[in-house]
């Protein structure tokens, strides 16, 4: 009887062990499917033959074409201008809001920053477009910066706010008691202490802005092209491997930024 019990326990255990591999296999499979398109995309950015799905040999030609195309370099310039302007605007406004708004009713208006996260992006885009056309504001880089700053603030304000709340407020009071003005305290005490949060928030806005397509598609008008918009128009008109090369570079840049961000987050525990 006892023996039988032992055996059944043993078989049950081995049965369980067999089943225990099912979950890792499932997860591995999903990861494989998740990443196979991206891997194939990267591989084909080095393919010699531009039209076929067959592998013809290794080449760097598409990357060379990428960097000699005036249109792409122009789009890159636009993307960078918009991204860095949005980062600057978001960080400045969020810092001012968090520090100077702490004693007024503005402090309780945090909710309004979540609106742009909740609504579908296309609704934001259409809203912006209709208000720009109504006030006959010419669509271009400015309107793009406005849109990207709008979505950027939704990420930046909560991050900076939460790390400001975690900060020892005694430091601000001590600085003021020792005769520093409000702005001296802001520049010499608050900003250095919050710098980890500021850097990760800035990285986040950079990623969001560089990757954004929908807001740009609606608010850029006919004259301005950003990198994602260029990729979209190329895909629709039949893409060449140059688009693969560009997508690969965009992926590499965002992955790099995210890698920095996560390394940073683990070290400083901003979130």
């Amino acid at each position, binding site marked *: 009887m006892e023996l039988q019990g032992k055996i059944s326990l043993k078989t049950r255990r081995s049965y369980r062990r067999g089943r225990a591999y099912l979950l890792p296999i499932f997860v591995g499979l999903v990861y494989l499917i998740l990443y196979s398109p991206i891997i194939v995309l990267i591989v084909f950015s080095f393919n010699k033959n531009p039209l076929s799905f067959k592998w013809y040999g290794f080449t760097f030609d598409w990357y060379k074409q990428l960097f000699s195309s005036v249109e792409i370099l122009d789009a890159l310039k636009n993307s960078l201008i918009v991204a860095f302007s949005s980062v600057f605007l978001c960080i400045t406004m969020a810092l001012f809001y968090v520090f*100077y708004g702490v004693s007024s009713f503005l402090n309780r208006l945090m909710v309004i920053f979540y609106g742009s996260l909740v609504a579908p992006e296309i609704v934001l885009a*259409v809203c912006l477009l209709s*208000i720009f056309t109504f006030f006959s504001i010419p669509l271009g880089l400015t309107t793009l910066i406005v849109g990207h700053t709008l979505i950027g603030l939704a990420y930046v304000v909560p991050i900076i706010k939460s790390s400001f709340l975690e900060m020892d407020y005694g430091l601000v009071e001590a600085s003021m008691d020792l005769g520093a003005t409000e702005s001296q305290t802001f520049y010499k005490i608050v900003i250095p202490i919050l710098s980890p949060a500021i850097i990760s928030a800035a990285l986040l806005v950079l990623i969001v802005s560089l*990757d954004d397509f*929908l807001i740009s598609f609606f608010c850029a008008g006919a004259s301005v092209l950003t990198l994602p918009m260029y990729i979209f128009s190329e895909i629709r008109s039949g893409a060449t491997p140059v688009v693969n090369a560009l997508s690969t570079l965009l992926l590499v840049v965002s*992955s790099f930024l*995210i890698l920095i961000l996560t390394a940073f987050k683990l070290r400083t525990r901003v979130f």
Partner: protein
Amino acid sequence: MKKNKFESEGSKEHSFAVALPAVLWQILFLYLPLFFLIYISFVKTLDYAVLKNLTLQNYKTLIDFSYFKIISRSVALAFFNSLFCLILAYPIAYFLALRVKRLKNLFIFLLVLPFWTNFLVQAYAWFFILDNNGILNKFLLKVGIISSPLHILNTPLAIYIVMLFCYLPFMVLPIYSSMTKIDKYLLEASSDLGATSWQTLGHVTLPLSLSGIRNGFFLVLIPSFGEFVIPILLGGGKVMYVGSMISYFFLETKNVFLGAAFTCFSGFILILIALIVYILFRKLGK
């Protein structure tokens, strides 16, 4: 003393003015435009007689079977995409939160990565898999499961597949974070008291991760209702969804008034569905 007070009053006004832009930005470029959009959905022309020209004409035009079909197509896409994502995401989140020990950070990083990368690039990458000469067809032909290539690209199936994998991280991450908050001793207690791992899953883990499931459901449901890029690129642009219809109104026909009405009406439907899902989750939680 008096002067001092005066000074501090002055600096208070100053600090209020400096803190204002962030709030103003949101009001000026999000909430005001939203009201404006609702307003123009009730007029036919823009002039200065603001409240006199209100009309329901735009909404009456929308009472048409073709628009009804487009909206219900998007509703189905949003709902089923969330459901499929949940089915696929739950085991993954379970594995990451409660099973895996080594390389956990790598697994999480590999999920966060597509979360932040461009949807456009991801959608484009799927072309190489789903094309008639793509990897999937080549593989299936070689294995011998099919004898002629499957036409997946430019069909709703392609849209559903790509949506599923693009939105998957949005579902996994909230479920994962709700699972990491579960007290490990509860799980141990459950198995010590004789529950099988399936029973523990059903009676302990699942109820305690319900908030994560709900958050993930909304994170997938809302953006996939208005999804624009994936249906246009992988559906071949033949079938209209809410996102493509909105862009058609605003960018191609430039019929802003009808477009606004369509956007507002779809938004209303979305809020309604979100509300229903919210109530369902509250019932489940009880």
